[in-house]
């Protein structure tokens, strides 16, 4: 069994977002038997729309139910969006729209293939990591 410690912090100064300071912090130790990981991957996103050449972030059922996904758009410009979509479900529903610098962390069901594209055509880099039980 391996353990990944995930800590999130959400903060804003007094008089900034709200009158009082905001400080939310949470740590979770995620322990999974036979945990495997993709490692922290980094790739240039070349597809500009839903397409076979879109960057594959996760392949359906690669991990048993309940993997976790960390993903980040490394672009510096806020207008440099990355779209992450579900390539398994009909209609390719988009689940994330990440502006430059944005990141997300979430548990997955694990049964859907996830891909990314960048409409701008500027080929921003994306970083991501999946961890869970390999199967």
């Amino acid at each position, binding site marked *: 069994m391996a353990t990944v410690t995930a800590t999130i912090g959400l903060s804003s100064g007094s008089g900034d977002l709200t009158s009082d300071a905001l400080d939310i912090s949470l740590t979770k130790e995620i322990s999974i038997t036979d945990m495997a990981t993709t490692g922290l991957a980094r790739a240039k996103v070349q597809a500009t729309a839903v397409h076979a050449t879109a960057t594959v972030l996760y392949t359906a059922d690669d991990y048993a139910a309940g993997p976790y996904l960390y993903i980040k758009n490394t672009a510096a410009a*806020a207008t440099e969006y990355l779209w992450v979509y579900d390539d398994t479900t009909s209609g390719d*529903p988009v689940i994330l729209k990440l502006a430059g610098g944005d990141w*997300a962390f979430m548990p997955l069901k694990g049964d859907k293939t996830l891909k990314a594209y960048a409409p701008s055509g500027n080929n921003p880099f994306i970083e991501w990591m999946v961890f869970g039980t390999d199967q």
Partner: protein
Amino acid sequence: MATTTAALSLTSSDLVGDALSVATTNTLYKAGTTEGLNQTTGMTRSYLTATTQIDLFLPVRTAAADAGKTCWIYICNKSTIETEYATIKLANNTLGRLYAGNFIWMPWNRSARFVDISLTPSVATGMEYEYCMFHEQVEQLASSDSRTFTDE
């Protein structure tokens, strides 16, 4: 400008051969700008006693005033019983299961394509959740309630 930051660290001493340490942070901006988000729902804490699917963040109308505006959502399952989980859905597509103590943090582009975000507890014995949204605009619908109440 309001400055709100979100930070994440992922560490492990036994997942890979060398120690794993990933850390990131970013400032929350309005869509396509470097102007800070300036609105929030505040943190909500709910105790749910049914396995009914509920909306945490409401559906977005097509062509609504807040369509395309930036939102960030945080959801945490505060249960301490490891087997208890909440199923999180985006529209009717399951994103994943949020087990006890786990959290989700993600941007949510409010448009008809992204619809709503819902939660379904795995048990009816009572589970606590916390959730919050940081946003630049959420459409406030005009009240259609015309009832009046007389003094007792």
